[in-house]
C-alpha cells in the first residue's frame, strides 16, 4: 500500500513515464507494446482508481520473462536498437510498479531519460524534440516533488521549467563546442540505421514504380541563384550495364580514364541516409578530395551514407558525358542475353541494316518510340519472360524503367553500345526556403548511348511521355493512377502547408541534426578557432562553463546587495528630506527622525509621522506580507507627490 503522501509523487512519475513511453510505442511491435503498456495501465489504475497492492512478485517476474522472450522471438536477439529499446520500455514499466522509495523514483526517471535517448535513434524530428522536452519537464518536476512533499503541480512544473531554462545556455554552449567524432567509437549494431527505401543498384520491372508511391524525401538541393530548368535536372545514380533478361545490374568497372571538366554549377545537396555510396550529383560532377568519380561518371562516397549528410558539389550538367572508353566496356555495353526478346532483336537488326551511321540508328530507334503510341503509367501491366518484347509490342504501357530497359535492348540489338542510368529527375521547389526537394517518387531511369567520343543521354521516357520530364511525375500520369497524398498535392494551401513544414524540417536537419564533426570544424573556423587543437576546445568549454556559472550566481549576489523593500521605499523619503537639508542620523530611528523633520518644517511633517510609524512596524513587526508592503509603497508615493512636500 502506498502512503497517501507518496502516492501523488508516484502519480507524477507514472505520468512522466507515460509521456516518455507513448511516442515510442508505434515503433515497437504489437506484443512488445502491450508488454510495455500493461504495467503502466496497472499502475495508473492502482493510483487513480483503486489503491490496490502491487502485483505479486511472480507476476512481475512473469511479465519480465515474457517481455524478454517476446523480444527475442520478435527480433531474434536482445541486442541492437529496437530490441534494446523494447527491453528498456518494459523495464521502465516494471520499475514503476515496484516504485516505492525515493531511490526507485530516481531509477524510473533515469530509465526515462535513457529511453528518450533510445528513441532518438529512431526519430530525431523537431516534434520528437518537443515531446522529449515535455517528458523532461515532467520527469524533473516529479523529482522535485519527491524531494519536497506537498509541492503543487504548478510550482513543480515552473520549478522544473526554470531549471531547464537555466540549463539551456550551458547546453547550447556544450552542443556547439563539445568535440564531435568523425567516426563511431565502435562498430554500430547491424540495425543501427533502419533500411530506408530508395534507389538500389539493380533494376527490374516495377522496382522504380514502387518508389514512385513514396512521398519520402530522398535529398534536397540548394542551388542559390540559378535553378537549372527541370529538363536538365538529372541526378546521376548507379550505371547499369549488365542485363540478364529481366534485371539490370552494374557491369564490371569500365577502367576508362574520365576526363575532368570545368564545373559550371555549384550546389549543396543534403542527402538522406540511403545506405548506398552514390552521392546523386548532377551530371558530370567534379569530385572533392574525399569523393570518388567512377569511370561511369558516378560520384561516390568512400563509405555508405548512414546518416544525413550535407555536401557542396560542383557539376557541369549537360546531356553528353565526354570521356574515353575501353573496348571491354563497350563490348559489355553491346551484350544481350541469349534467347530473350527475339522480336526486339529482329527490330534492332532491321534498324542496323537500314541505317549506316550510329546517329542515324539512334534517330531511328527514337522515331520508333515516338510513333509507337506508348503511354506512361504507374500501374503497368505485368510483363512476361521477354520483357522488352512484351513492352514494345504488346502492353505499350510502362514506367520509366520499362522505357529505359526496352530502349537499351533495342539499341544494343542495333549495334549501339548502350546502358541504363538510374537516379532522380526533376524535383519540386519549396516555395518557403527555395530548396529543391527531390522525393523518392522522383526516382527515374534513363539511357546512355556511346557515340564514338561521348556517352549521349537519351531519355526514352521523355520521348514517349515528354511531360514527365518537364512537369514531373504528376503531370505525366493519368488522373486515375493512385499516388500518395503528399505527392499529389492539388490544393494550393496543402502545398503551402507542406512546403512550410518541410522548410522547417530542412532547417532543423541542417542546423541541429546536421551539426557534425565537419560542420563543427567549419563553424569554429569561421569564428577563428581550430577544433583540432584540444587546448583551444578546453579553454572554450571552460570559459563557457564559467560564464554560465556567473550568469546563474549573478542574481544571487544582486539580491544579497539589495535592501529589503520597505527600506528601499523609505530611502525615497530620506532623499526628499535630504534635499531640504534634513538627514537621518545613523543612530536615529524613523519615528524620532520624522518628529525632528516635522519640527524643522511643519509643511514637510504632514503625514510623515504616520509614514515613519508604518515603516517601523514593517521593520520591527512580524514579517510583512505583500499587501502591507504595497500599501506602504503607495503611501510613500502619494506623500512624495503631495504638494506640501514638493516645494
Amino acid at each position: 500500500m502506498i502512503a497517501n503522501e507518496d502516492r501523488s509523487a508516484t502519480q507524477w512519475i507514472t505520468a512522466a513515464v507515460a509521456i516518455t513511453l507513448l511516442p515510442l510505442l508505434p515503433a515497437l511491435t504489437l506484443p512488445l507494446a502491450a508488454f510495455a503498456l500493461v504495467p503502466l495501465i496497472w499502475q495508473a489504475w492502482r493510483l487513480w482508481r483503486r489503491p490496490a497492492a502491487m502485483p505479486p512478485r511472480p507476476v512481475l517476474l512473469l511479465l519480465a520473462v515474457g517481455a524478454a522472450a517476446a523480444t527475442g522471438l520478435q527480433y531474434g536477439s536482445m541486442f541492437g536498437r529496437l530490441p534494446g529499446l523494447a527491453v528498456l520500455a518494459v523495464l521502465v514499466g516494471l520499475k514503476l510498479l515496484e516504485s516505492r522509495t525515493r531511490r526507485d523514483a530516481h531509477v524510473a526517471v533515469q530509465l526515462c531519460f535513457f529511453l528518450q535517448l533510445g528513441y532518438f535513434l529512431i526519430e530525431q524530428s523537431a516534434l520528437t524534440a518537443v515531446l522529449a522536452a515535455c517528458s523532461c519537464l515532467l520527469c524533473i518536476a516529479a523529482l522535485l516533488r519527491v524531494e519536497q512533499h506537498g509541492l503543487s503541480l504548478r510550482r513543480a512544473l515552473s520549478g522544473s521549467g526554470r531549471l531547464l531554462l537555466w540549463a539551456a545556455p550551458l547546453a547550447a554552449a556544450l552542443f556547439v563546442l563539445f568535440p564531435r567524432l568523425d567516426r563511431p567509437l565502435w562498430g554500430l549494431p547491424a540495425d543501427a540505421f533502419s533500411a530506408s527505401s530508395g534507389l538500389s543498384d539493380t533494376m527490374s520491372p516495377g522496382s522504380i514504380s514502387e518508389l514512385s508511391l513514396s512521398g519520402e524525401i530522398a535529398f534536397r538541393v540548394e542551388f542559390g541563384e540559378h535553378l537549372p530548368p527541370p529538363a536538365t535536372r538529372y541526378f546521376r545514380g548507379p550505371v547499369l550495364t549488365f542485363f540478364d533478361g529481366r534485371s539490370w545490374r552494374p557491369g564490371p568497372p569500365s577502367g576508362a580514364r574520365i576526363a575532368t571538366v570545368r564545373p559550371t554549377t555549384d550546389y549543396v545537396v543534403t542527402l538522406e541516409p540511403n545506405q548506398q555510396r552514390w552521392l546523386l550529383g548532377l551530371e558530370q560532377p567534379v569530385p572533392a578530395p574525399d569523393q570518388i568519380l567512377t569511370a561511369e561518371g558516378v560520384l561516390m562516397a568512400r563509405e555508405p551514407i548512414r546518416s544525413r549528410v550535407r555536401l557542396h558539389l560542383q557539376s557541369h550538367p549537360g546531356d553528353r558525358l565526354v570521356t574515353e572508353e575501353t573496348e571491354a566496356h563497350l563490348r559489355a555495353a553491346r551484350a544481350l542475353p541469349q534467347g530473350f526478346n527475339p522480336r526486339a532483336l529482329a527490330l534492332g537488326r532491321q534498324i542496323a541494316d537500314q541505317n549506316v551511321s550510329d546517329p542515324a540508328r539512334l534517330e531511328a530507334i527514337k522515331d520508333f518510340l515516338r510513333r509507337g503510341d506508348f503511354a506512361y503509367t504507374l500501374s503497368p501491366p505485368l510483363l512476361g519472360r521477354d520483357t522488352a518484347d512484351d513492352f514494345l509490342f504488346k502492353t505499350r504501357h510502362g514506367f520509366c524503367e520499362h522505357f529505359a530497359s526496352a530502349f537499351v535492348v533495342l539499341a544494343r540489338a542495333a549495334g549501339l553500345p548502350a546502358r541504363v542510368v538510374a537516379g532522380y529527375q526533376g524535383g519540386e521547389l519549396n516555395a518557403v526556403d527555395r530548396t529543391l526537394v527531390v522525393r523518392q517518387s522522383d526516382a527515374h531511369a534513363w539511357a546512355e548511348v556511346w557515340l564514338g567520343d561521348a556517352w549521349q543521354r537519351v531519355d526514352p521516357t521523355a520521348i514517349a511521355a515528354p511531360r514527365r520530364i518537364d512537369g514531373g511525375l504528376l503531370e505525366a500520369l493519368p488522373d486515375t493512377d493512385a499516388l500518395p497524398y503528399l505527392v499529389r498535392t492539388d490544393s494550393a494551401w496543402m502545398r503551402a502547408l507542406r512546403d512550410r513544414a518541410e522548410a522547417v524540417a530542412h532547417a532543423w536537419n541542417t542546423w541541429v541534426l546536421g551539426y557534425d564533426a565537419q560542420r563543427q570544424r567549419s563553424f569554429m573556423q569561421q569564428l577563428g578557432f581550430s577544433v583540432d587543437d584540444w587546448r583551444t576546445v578546453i579553454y572554450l568549454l571552460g570559459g563557457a562553463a564559467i560564464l554560465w556559472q556567473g550568469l546563474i550566481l549573478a542574481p544571487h549576489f544582486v539580491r544579497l546587495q539589495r535592501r529589503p523593500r520597505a527600506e528601499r521605499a523609505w530611502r525615497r523619503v530620506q532623499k526628499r528630506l535630504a534635499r531640504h537639508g534634513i538627514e537621518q542620523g545613523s543612530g536615529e530611528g524613523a519615528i524620532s527622525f520624522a518628529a525632528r523633520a516635522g519640527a524643522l518644517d511643519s509643511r514637510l511633517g504632514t503625514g510623515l509621522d504616520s509614514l515613519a510609524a508604518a515603516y517601523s512596524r514593517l521593520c520591527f513587526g512580524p514579517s510583512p506580507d505583500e499587501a502591507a508592503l504595497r500599501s506602504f509603497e503607495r503611501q510613500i508615493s502619494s506623500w512624495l507627490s503631495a504638494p506640501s512636500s514638493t516645494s
Partner: protein
Amino acid sequence: MSRPAIAALRERLQRWMLRNRPPEALPILLRQRRVYVLPTGTGLSYGGMLLAMLIASLNYNLALGFALTFFLAGVGHLALLRAHRNLLGLSLQAGRAEPGFAGAPLQIELVFSEESGRERGPLRVGTPEDPSAGFELAARSPTRVACLLPARPRGRHRLGRLRVETRFPLGLVVAWAYLEPDIEAWVYPAPEPHPPAAPQGGTGERNARRANVAGDSELESLRPYRPGDSLRRIAWRRLSRGGPLITKSFSDPVGSDLSLNWQACSALPDVETRLSRLCAWVLQAESRGLRWSLSLPGFALDSGSGPEHARRALEALAKFGTAP
C-alpha cells in the same frame, strides 16, 4: 576497511570540517566555508547515466542525444548550486535542550532563521549519523524545529555535533554543514520503571503497606503537552511512534512528607540502580505534589516541593559521582 576504521576516519574528517572549532555561541551563521556538497548515491548514478548517454550520442552522432545529455548535465549542476545555496546564509538562532532521562532520547529544540529573503527548501537536522528532523524555512521567518537526539548516560552534556543537510532540489546532491552549538543538556538517571513506594516520614512502616501499589497512581487522562509539564509525564511511547507530544496526568492522592535518602536504597547492589530508584521516587513525589527531602552522600536537599525543588534534586542525582 573495517567498520571501526571507517568510523575513525569519519570522525577525523568531521573534526577537520569543523576545523577544531570549540563549541560556538549562538547564533551560528552558515557561511561558504562550512557548507560542503557531495553527490548522493542517486546523484552518482545520474552522473553515470549522463556519461553513458554522452558516449552513446558520440557513437551514433545523435544531435538530440547531445542536446538531452547537455541539458541534463546543466540541470545536475544547477542541483548542486541550489543545494549549496539552500544551506548558505542559514543561521541557528537559538536552541535549548529539555532535560532528559538516561536511556530515553534527548529532546532538543532549535530555532533556525535566514535573512537573505530566500525561502529554503526541505532541510534536515540531527546527529551527524542520522539527521532526521525535517523542516522548511520561509523567507525571514524563524522556524522552530524539534529534534530527538540519541540517548545519553546521566550527567550534564554538551549537545555535541549536529548536522544540517539538504538534498533540495532534486536529491542528486547533498549539501551539509556541521554545527556544534554551545548548548548543554541535563540527563537525569533513568527512573526505575516500577519502584517500591518511597519511605514516608523517615519511618519505614507504611512502606510494606503500599509496596504493592508499585508507585503508580491511576492514569487519569491524556492532554496535549504544555511547556513546563514534567518530562516524566510525557507519553514517550506515543512520541516514539511519531505521535504528538502528550502529557499524562494523574490523579493526586493526598500525601505527607517523604524523606528520600541513599540509605533507603542500600539493599540495591550498585550506584546506578540506587540513583534510578531515587529518581523514580523524586518524580513520584513531585507528580503527587508531596513535600519531600533528599539526601545523598555529599548532598542534601531540605524538605520542599515544586518543579524547582525537583530540578535541583534531579540535577544532583544526575551529577552524582561525577566531577563537579
